[in-house]
């Protein structure tokens, strides 16, 4: 529209899955949240092009969608790792050395909170409490839980996932 405005740099992605998600909810009142959650489920994050698609198909402003996406911590606008490593930073874990666990993750994979490894394999997330204080210090990798960690055990967990696809 304007020459001076920044050009949108939109990566080419396959929108089939996003369209299917929208098809599923389009007639529902208040469809935006389930659509965005569905898209994140499919792509692992919310690619920009899917925001524009959603805006067009649901007749919602892209700016509004962006407002929703930045309001809720559950949405991610950048690609995320295959394995999400949630390091618990709750009181019990903190006391029992969660800092060392996070440190280990940083040393081995080079990522801190909200960062993703370049190979898109791991994303680190520091979380407040995952409700498993008896196992402190504890982490979750996707759905798997690993408790009573030491630096050595943490190393093993990382190695285990590194060996996987």
């Amino acid at each position, binding site marked *: 529209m304007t020459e001076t405005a920044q050009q949108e740099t939109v990566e080419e992605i396959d929108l089939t899955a996003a369209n299917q998600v929208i098809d599923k909810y389009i007639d529902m009142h208040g469809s935006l949240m389930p659509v965005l959650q569905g898209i994140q489920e499919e792509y692992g994050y919310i690619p920009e092009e899917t925001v524009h698609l959603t805006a*067009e198909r649901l007749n919602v402003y892209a*700016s509004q969608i962006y407002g929703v996406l930045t309001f809720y911590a559950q949405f991610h606008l950048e690609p995320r790792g295959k394995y999400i490593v949630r390091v618990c930073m709750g009181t019990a874990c903190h006391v029992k050395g969660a800092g060392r666990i996070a440190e280990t993750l940083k040393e081995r994979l080079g990522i801190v909170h909200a960062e993703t490894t370049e190979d898109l394999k791991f994303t680190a997330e520091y979380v407040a409490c995952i409700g498993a204080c008896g196992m402190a210090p504890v982490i979750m990798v996707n759905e798997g839980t690993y408790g009573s960690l030491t630096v050595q055990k943490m190393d093993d967990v990382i190695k285990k996932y590194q060996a996987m696809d």
Partner: protein
Amino acid sequence: MVNLTIDGKEVTVSKTATIYEAAKEAGVHIPVLCYAKKLLPYGACRVCLVEVEQMKGRLIPSCTTPATEGMVVTTMSDEIRKVRKTVLEFLLVNHVVDCPVCDKGGECDLQDLSYDYEVVTNRFQGEKFDLPKDEVNPLIERNMNRCVLCGKCVRVCDEVVGYGSYSFINRGFETKIATAFDRGLNCEFCGQCVSMCPVGAILPRPFKFKARPWQLKEVNSVCGYCGNGCTVTLGTKDNEVQTIRFNDETGVNDGNLCIRGRFGASYVNSDQRLTSPLIRKDGELVEASWEEALEKVTEGLRSAGSDTGIITGARLTNEELFMLKNLAKAVGTGNLDHSGGESYKGVTEGLQETLGLQASTATFPQVENANAILAIRTDFYETHPVFGMVVNQAVKRNGAQLTVIGDKQGKLTRMPHARTLQHKPGLEVNILNAMCRFLLDEGLAKTEGLQGVEELKTALAAYSVDAVAAATGVDAAAIQKTATELATVENAAILLAYGLPYTAHSRELGLAAANLALLTGIAGRSGSGLYLCGEKSNSQGAIDLQILPAAGALGVTGMLKSAGEGKLKALYVTGEDMLVSYPDKGLIEKAIDKTPFVVVQDLFLSETASKADVVLPAASFAEKAGTFTNAERRIQRLNPGITSPGQAKTDFAIFQDLLTALGATASTSEAAAFAELAAVTPGYEMVSLDMVGDQGYVWGGETLAPEVRNLVTVEGGKALDSKFQLVVGSALYHSGTTSLHAKGPMSVVSEPYIEFGREDAAELKVLDGELVKLKAAGGEISAKAKVDRRLPKGVLFAPYHFGSLNLNRIYSGQAAIAVEVSK
């Protein structure tokens, strides 16, 4: 109505009023930051807190609380003062407080309130943001470090404009206003957000560091661009229009403006303005005195007499057009006309034959309460954006069902629940005919008192909904549904704009739209209306004053043809760059070439002016008094804010001089001319200038009843059999050719383009910004491609404003042009 007491004053207000509005009514001032008259109540800023006796124990936000019977309100107390001051302290925690260099200084609500409440120190400390300014676009500067999160920009862009640029992003302390993906602004640049911002967070960039508000002189006038007739309040200093000030008290537009109105007035200050008459000597245009120029023009016109052709633009005032008509009489010619391709025929012939009128039947505000709206062509928003904002409010706030008959998508088609009858180019009339036939067949038509019902029924035999649906590519059920709605809802509106790029089928469209307006009962019913809206600021005035060929004389097309055959001895062109804006450039070139004496009166040395024998420098809207009549028949006053550059004169003064030189009598002033024209113009007879107040004066009343009710048979169009078809039209950012001299619109759209839909672009491997060529019967044009989502397969679009595109080499008034695309 409810009665309540505010600070001891008793006040009676409507039951929809809030406490704030009631207080305003009672003359009691309550401070606000997030409230705006035209936006829905929001309650974000909390500075309007008041005490209500019936709601003790807490303070009540006056801007969101409805006034109720018997309420006793106190708007100021020690407690209120303390709380408001605290609110201000909170707002100032992360505010940059850079008032000395902020353009808002002197009219900043936060600055004024901090001063009023003596917020000298702040008990709270917090982080200041250092957010980057949005300086990417040339018109609107956003500095979020000054933002108070009142959300007015977000709301106006949604509720009024319907564009939705902004949203609140992030959460808590980090919350800020941003666009999608927090990028630079890339929008319509109407600047509504600028006008709403209570602080210096959103500012008009062209006005930065130009003047403090108290240094400006404010003059209310009428925008010189389109037929919407918005009030523009000129902020002038040093004999220049520095900026357009916000004004929601005067006129038709509630303070709303489009990019042209808000940022497009700068052409009046352009250094390209003509400042002296020019006369062609030895093939060159050279500066001359007014005496010499006027003598030459007088002599030329006098000797040409009845072989003179007079063509004017529709941006002259009523008074000037009246004088021009007298000038034609004095010269002895009936060859007088005002718009290329006679695009106004929808009104002058279409509505005249069917309704006996030559104007819209209702006023703009009535559309806000319409239940169903039919817009013919989505470009209605492009030509009349501020009326488009009224449509948006009807749809968004009041749930009106909008239907668009369009050959492409556009702003209107994206409005909530808008139904688009997307058809092959040139077939609008066919769809209107199908709606008429459907209403007649189904017995939904209101045929009582209508002439020609049976004839129309017979004539519409070929326009069954199914046949038209098949021919146009529109869904049959959608045609039926739209027709049914229009005929059965309480209030309905039909909108059609006309103008230079929309000359095809203009008479037919007027007829078909009027037939539908009659059959649905819209024409003449209060609350409903048929709107035929002229492209230029005084298009309606030109029709009211009958700036049209006299009986047996030549209209624009006739004049140009005749001139091309060497039959006219003089052409006098005022306020129009025909070579750029009229259809069929070849015809105009020939006309100018073959006419021995050509006079052009304009603001700039336009392409047409550069071919003239005499060029007379005229004045812009900002330099003149007089009246315009807008597309809803509202007569409004212009007031001069500045004087003309150099020796330029108003068209009025020039006509005065010429009339006197020709030995005719000239009106002595604009006011005198108005009285004289009112006496002889139907609808204006009872209007005197002092009736034209802040809201103008609508001649004929809010609803104009048809004089006759004749249904007239009208033939539909035929689709072109061509793989690629070019449709021409208006771009939102421009209006006619004048805006090409305005920095604002030019900074956004500076050059012509050819728009492609994504599908075609992909098929043709055309990239955005790439140079493309279009070959058509009349020649070849070339411009950068613009790839967008608006166009269906096979349809291309080009705006008509740019002379460099030479669009009128291939556009001669067709609904669509068969083209071949190459790179």
